[in-house]
């Protein structure tokens, strides 16, 4: 297996190798030398280029992969810039430029629902600084006090005289000014563009085939590659018979890639793929060949009762409280490995010479792709460049992992001077994912004689993502990410107060590489906690909403979204005949989310989700229409997972190969989703991921209400349950 970790060390070494004289940024005066965009237009700040025709080009460091961050971030800059929104275009700065300019655009990483919430301050400052410089330039030109001038809609006005000038006319002069140190930002109540459901900036090309994804790249002299990596993770190539396919149509070369993969390079990709299918390869599968889903499940099961575990949330004495409880319940849940399966399979195009390596790649993190390029090419940062190409979905697969970049560069190195596009088959994508971690959970609850919850113990047993991906982020061996949604405080805070609480994790890692799957660990944690909440409420004969409310008095924001969905759905009032309801709530990625699902069930096993009412309090809502789409879209992703998707392991390899055995929801299964976007202000929460986790437990709890059956092992298809 070729593993590319985000190698921060090589990235930093590469960064410092670049000459310091090129450094420029928002806070460093440009002096008289204007930084220019490729077309020669002046850059007012790192975020804003203005062309003479008044076109405003806003730089976007994060990656657009469908979630709408491109438009949202542009709204943030434009709000402060006071520019004409109809003249806004966007462009991605390259990671190489970022290195040369000491990360003038900050972090490129697009994951963890951080695109807007982490960069909102500095992108708005980038817009505000540009506006101030443009106004100053106009005031200088008119020789009037800057305080007498204002800007709106890309036009600067000198109030006393009524003179006006457009941004395009003063951009050149503005670019020569010193940017203000700390530009003041608008009060949120004065926002005109932030909070407005403006249309996305990138829709048209997605309607006519013009939007170029990584898989679509064409360049002169380019060849195409198809690849097979050892199906068993950790295995190697033993041998292959290149001569058997060398004369097949279009074949140029058969190359080994690292110690675990073989690629065929041909004129067209179909020729490469056809020859690869015919190529005899013998694998050295190594010791992981012994591993199966059953052995992994056994290992996790042992962890459920193990003495040692990492503790993330504890108060009181759970064991004593459960021992002395008047009533007790317990349950065991299990969540499987899952593949991201974005619609566009992994790909990257690389061109290598001993003096330069360039990579074109759909990536959620240009800087990580750049680090992978440096490592694979062996060249320093000033001899490498990465160009971000549109993504056909990311969902976490294209963020921390750039195995396909490494492969593309290793192939290109064997064909210097020739650009090579590596495109994985869907089968390769299914066999070489970075999977949603496998996890089991055993929950115990204790109640006093008045049916009050006195103790709750959640024991997680399963994989740690950070142990594999970012071991330096472990805390004394503990993986804090495992506890998303279950922490005492922070962006992933639990919304319940229980007198005696213990949440711990018996880490049980496998050879199957884990990754950040949309929502990451909230998917299973919300099911474990919120389905067990429902179990506890029923165990003591209480309404699931009222049971929760008693535990949520100290968690007003969690409670507010839960109340919002309950009210909108009509909780407590009769549902239509044959329709049953279920609830769930969670805080994750800084946002408070809740859902109320309404389902009907036929034959005890065919679930029709009639409606899901969902609410999110994400602090500020930059583009409510896009947030609604993220809510509904996250439900499709999460419900596909809980109903349909599991990657099983046999003889060390993943068994599922394509959408025929790893299905995804279709339109006929899509419930009506009613979204309540209720930003309460004062904080910035995420949007792309948080809601994903509440659909599944809400539906499972509604299924229990309908049938009295509690399903605790997923996906539901394994229990004979279908989504209709």
């Amino acid at each position, binding site marked *: 297996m070729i593993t590319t970790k985000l190698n921060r060390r090589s990235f930093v070494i590469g960064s410092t190798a670049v000459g310091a004289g090129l450094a420029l940024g928002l806070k460093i005066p440009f002096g008289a030398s204007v930084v220019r965009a490729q077309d020669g237009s002046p850059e007012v700040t790192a975020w804003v280029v203005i062309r003479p025709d008044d076109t405003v080009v806003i730089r976007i460091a994060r990656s657009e992969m469908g979630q709408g961050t491109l438009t949202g971030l542009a709204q943030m800059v434009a709000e402060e810039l006071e520019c004409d929104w109809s003249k806004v275009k966007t462009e991605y700065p390259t990671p190489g430029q970022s290195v040369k300019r000491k990360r003038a655009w900050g972090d490129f990483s697009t994951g963890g629902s951080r695109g807007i919430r982490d960069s909102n301050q500095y992108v708005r400052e980038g817009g505000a600084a540009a506006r101030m410089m443009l106004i100053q330039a106009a005031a200088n030109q008119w020789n009037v006090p800057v305080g007498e001038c204002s800007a709106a809609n890309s036009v600067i006005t000198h109030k006393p005289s009524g003179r006006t000038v457009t941004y395009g006319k003063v951009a050149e002069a503005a670019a020569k000014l010193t940017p203000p140190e700390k530009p003041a930002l608008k009060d949120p109540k004065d926002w005109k563009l932030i909070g407005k459901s403006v249309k996305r900036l990138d*829709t048209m090309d997605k309607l*006519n*085939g013009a939007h170029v994804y990584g898989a679509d790249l064409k360049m002169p002299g380019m060849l195409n590659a198809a690849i097979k990596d050892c199906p068993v993770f950790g295995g190697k190539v033993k041998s292959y018979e290149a001569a058997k396919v060398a004369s097949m149509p279009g074949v140029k070369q058969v190359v080994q890639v690292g110690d675990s993969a073989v690629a065929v390079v041909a004129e067209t990709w179909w020729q490469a793929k056809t020859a690869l299918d015919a190529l005899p390869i013998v694998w050295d599968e190594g010791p992981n060949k012994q591993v199966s889903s059953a052995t992994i499940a056994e290992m996790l099961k042992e962890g459920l009762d193990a003495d040692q575990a990492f503790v993330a949330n504890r108060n009181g004495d759970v064991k004593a409280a459960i021992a002395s409880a008047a009533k007790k319940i317990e349950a065991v849940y299990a969540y499987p490995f899952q593949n991201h399966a974005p*619609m566009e399979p992994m790909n990257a195009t690389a061109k290598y010479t001993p003096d330069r390596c360039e990579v074109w790649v759909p990536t959620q993190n240009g800087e990580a792709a750049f680090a992978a390029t440096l490592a694979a090419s062996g060249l320093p940062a000033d001899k490498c460049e990465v160009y971000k190409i549109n993504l056909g979905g990311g969902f976490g697969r294209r963020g921390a992992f750039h195995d396909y970049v490494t492969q593309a560069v290793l192939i290109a190195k064997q064909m210097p001077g020739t650009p090579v596009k590596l495109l994985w088959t869907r089968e390769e994508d299914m066999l070489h994912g970075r999977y949603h971690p496998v996890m089991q959970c055993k929950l115990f609850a204790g109640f006093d004689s008045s049916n009050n919850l006195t103790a709750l113990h959640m024991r997680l047993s399963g994989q740690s993502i950070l142990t594999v991906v970012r071991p330096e982020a472990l805390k004394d061996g503990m993986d804090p990410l495992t506890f998303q949604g279950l922490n005492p405080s922070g962006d992933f805070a639990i919304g319940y107060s229980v007198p005696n609480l213990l949440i711990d994790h018996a880490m049980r890692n496998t050879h199957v590489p884990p990754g950040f799957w949309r929502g990451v660990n909230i998917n299973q944690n919300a099911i474990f906690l919120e389905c067990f909440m429902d179990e506890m409420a029923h165990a003591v004969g209480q309404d699931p909403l009222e049971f929760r409310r008693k535990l949520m008095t100290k968690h007003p924001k969690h409670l507010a979204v839960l109340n919002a969905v309950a009210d909108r759905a009509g909780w407590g009032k009769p549902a239509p005949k044959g329709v049953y309801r279920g609830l769930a709530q969670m805080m994750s990625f800084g946002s408070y989310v809740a859902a109320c699902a309404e389902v009907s069930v036929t034959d005890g096993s065919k679930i029709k989700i009639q409606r899901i009412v969902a609410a999110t309090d994400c602090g500020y809502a930059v583009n409510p229409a896009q947030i609604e789409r993220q809510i509904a879209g996250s439900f499709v992703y999460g419900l596909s997972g809980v109903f349909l998707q599991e990657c099983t392991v046999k003889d060390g390899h993943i068994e599922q190969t394509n959408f025929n055995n790893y299905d995804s929801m279709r339109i006929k299964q899509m419930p009506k989703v009613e979204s309540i976007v209720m930003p309460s202000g004062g904080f910035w929460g995420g949007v792309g991921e948080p809601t994903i986790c509440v659909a599944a437990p809400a539906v499972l709890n509604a299924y229990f209400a309908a049938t009295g059956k509690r399903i605790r092992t997923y996906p539901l298809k394994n229990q004979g349950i279908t989504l209709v």
Partner: protein
Amino acid sequence: MARLTINGKTLDLNVDPTTPLLWAIREQAGLTGTKYGCGIAQCGACTVHLDGAAIRSCVMPVSAAEGKKITTIEGLANGSTLHKVQKAWLDNQVPQCGYCQSGMIMAAAALLREKPKPTDADIDARITNICRCGTFQQVREAIHAAAKA
């Protein structure tokens, strides 16, 4: 060699006749709006029209498409005038990442050609494309909007 008529143009393509139509469209004709998603007719990203009907081009050999009228996403609009499905998609802001949308739009256009006023059940039966971003709610709204246009 294969002679294909794509978006009104007749092209003589240097391609093995067993090659899937998808790859002839993408690699020989150079029209990359039609996408590869699965290669086994499961996801619908490769949907094009063959004599007006939606087909999954990843499993059809080019030999089977010769002599027929092929329309891809690039040929759906009438010059600069968007097809009513494209217009509805724009108005309803359907696409997220957009990768599946060429196939989704071609499937919707074929449905509307056959059933100008489709019911929800018609949509459920005929739109079977996978969208991992989960645009289905907007897809349904946009198909109904296009039917009214």
